[in-house]
């Protein structure tokens, strides 16, 4: 298939189909409604499952059931809806089941607004579900990158038996870009899902159980230790980031993801014209966070600017990764306000005013 011009949310849906999704369960919420709308048409027409649930709580538990039964399954939602899914996400992670959760962020807190935002970084990376679990979270910058990531997400989820979240903001969901849907994904050896609850007729002599209950504290601690080993392996293998403009030693380094990274690219070009060389670390996986990228920041760099469409959430990870080596500044807009590149240019030029104490 040649490149096609497509709206972000519809591209999410088509990418999921290309990734082999068997079932979608979800509940309507702006600004992601084109995802279920597109899937309702195309999944049912192809003998797959699309079901609109009575709530996000129900949707994520339908995902749990289908994932346990061995299907490639996904849901998508936005901020308040993802909030409701957190309990189920914790159970799915605990039962070590694969699934894809797409989160199209809008402004918060509470009902907030429907304009694009990155205010759910904490929600995605820290989660609101209980316990020591971890997702794999990708935050792509372009529709092409989002499509490639979604297609691969199903394999990644299956490989690690872990839920994957793809996190974008409403701007990426609503804008149009030309995309190639047929770029090959990385080959992975994916073992048979011999753990799936498909009835013992399919696996005689063994009962398969999808479960997160472990009443014995010794066993539960062992399980947590094993999960941490898995998360370490994921960090080693699946951490993704892009280093922008690091060919010559940058004076400043911006850290930004998704839509904010797009804006910062323009700002970096403008700053170059003014003779200020600025690089960017663009996390593609925000969980695991690419802390290794911070080792490549030159010693002489004057500072790191963390830029977000929120009030300072990724900033925590930037501060941890920087580990006191450089001054760290923060630039953030929120509520659906999207800055011009000039505002980033200004933040770099007046970096001292931005420094986080």
């Amino acid at each position, binding site marked *: 298939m040649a490149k096609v011009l497509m709206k972000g949310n519809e591209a999410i849906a088509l990418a999921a189909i290309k990734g082999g999704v068997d079932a979608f369960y979800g509940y309507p919420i702006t600004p992601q409604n084109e995802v279920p709308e597109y899937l309702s048409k195309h999944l049912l027409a192809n003998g797959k499952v699309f*079901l609109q649930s*009575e709530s996000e709580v129900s949707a994520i538990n339908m995902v749990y*059931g289908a994932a346990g039964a061995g299907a490639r399954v996904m849901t998508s939602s936005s901020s308040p809806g993802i909030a409701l899914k957190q309990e189920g996400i914790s159970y799915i992670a605990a039962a070590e089941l694969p699934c894809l959760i797409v989160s199209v962020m809008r402004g918060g807190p509470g009902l907030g607004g429907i304009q694009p935002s990155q205010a759910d970084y904490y929600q995605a990376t820290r989660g609101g579900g209980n316990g020591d679990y971890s997702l794999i979270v990708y935050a792509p910058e372009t529709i092409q990158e989002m499509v490639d990531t979604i297609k691969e997400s199903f394999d990644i989820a299956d490989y690690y038996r872990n839920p994957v979240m793809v996190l974008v903001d409403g701007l990426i969901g609503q804008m149009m870009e030309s995309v190639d849907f047929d770029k090959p994904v990385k080959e992975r050896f994916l073992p048979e899902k011999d753990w799936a*609850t498909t*009835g*013992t007729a399919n696996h005689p002599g063994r*009962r398969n*159980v*999808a479960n997160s209950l472990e009443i014995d504290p010794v066993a539960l601690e062992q399980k947590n230790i094993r999960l941490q080993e898995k998360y370490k392996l994921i960090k080693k293998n699946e951490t993704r980031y892009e280093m922008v403009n690091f060919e010559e030693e940058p004076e400043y380094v911006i850290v930004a993801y998704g839509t904010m990274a797009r804006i910062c690219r323009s700002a970096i070009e403008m700053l170059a014209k003014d003779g200020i060389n600025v690089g960017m670390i663009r996390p593609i996986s925000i969980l695991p966070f690419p802390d290794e990228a911070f080792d490549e920041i030159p010693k002489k760099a004057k500072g790191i600017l963390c830029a977000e469409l929120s009030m300072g959430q990724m900033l925590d990870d930037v501060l941890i990764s920087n580990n006191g080596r450089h001054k760290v500044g923060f630039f953030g807009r929120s509520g659906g306000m999207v800055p011009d590149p000039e505002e980033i240019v200004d933040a770099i030029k007046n970096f001292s005013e931005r420094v986080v104490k």
Partner: protein
Amino acid sequence: MAETTVKYEKTKGLTDKPLSYCPGCTHGIVHKLVGEALVDLDILDKAIGVASVGCSVFSYEFFNCDAQQAPHGRACAEATGIKRVLPDNIVFTYQGDGDLASIGIAETIHAANRGENITVIFVNNAIYGMTGGQMAPTSLKGQKTTTSQDGRDTDWTGNPIKISEMLATIEGVAYIERVSVHDPKHYLKAKKAIKKAFQYQKEKKGFTLIEVVSTCPVNWGMKPVDAMKWLSKEMIPVFPLGVYKDKGDNHES
């Protein structure tokens, strides 16, 4: 040497794991009936049980088939997720009254409304057993629980909620019966009802639910025999037994 004849065998529908229920609790009897129905209908190896959160949380270890363990109240959603991708399997939930009638009522009503082809085994003991005997939405007027110590005040907390009656109004429901296992006569009726519910699922008739009025001698503060008597005398008048809906061939719904 005298010959031994086998008069009774534990059903193959249950595993050998010792049940975790208190002595005299009816959960165990209901387990046996479910296990037997799965064996009798030859669907055990196609069955996927969904355990809920309550005293029956470990039911995934007791039913001798595949299983999933759902978050509190979400069993019908989880069962829906399974059934939609595996429509030819047999999917059932096993839920208490706190789980189904309180925190999970939305999931239950909507699964019923979609005519989800699953079977719900609903164990109504009018109390939150697992958490130590708090008031449930099914608790009787005046019933003493740890959170209604002077007896349930229905002006303040509402009246016992009647799930079978409510769900019977829903189009997608194929079969609903309220049964009890407090004596052999009722036990046999319950056995028939549970088997019929699974039979209907096998025939893809739609949503089936069997409500079993049950005891919790421990949290009711009664001896098992007295609990059975209390069930018969106090609970059944509030939760009358019988068929609430039947879309079967020989019945008008």
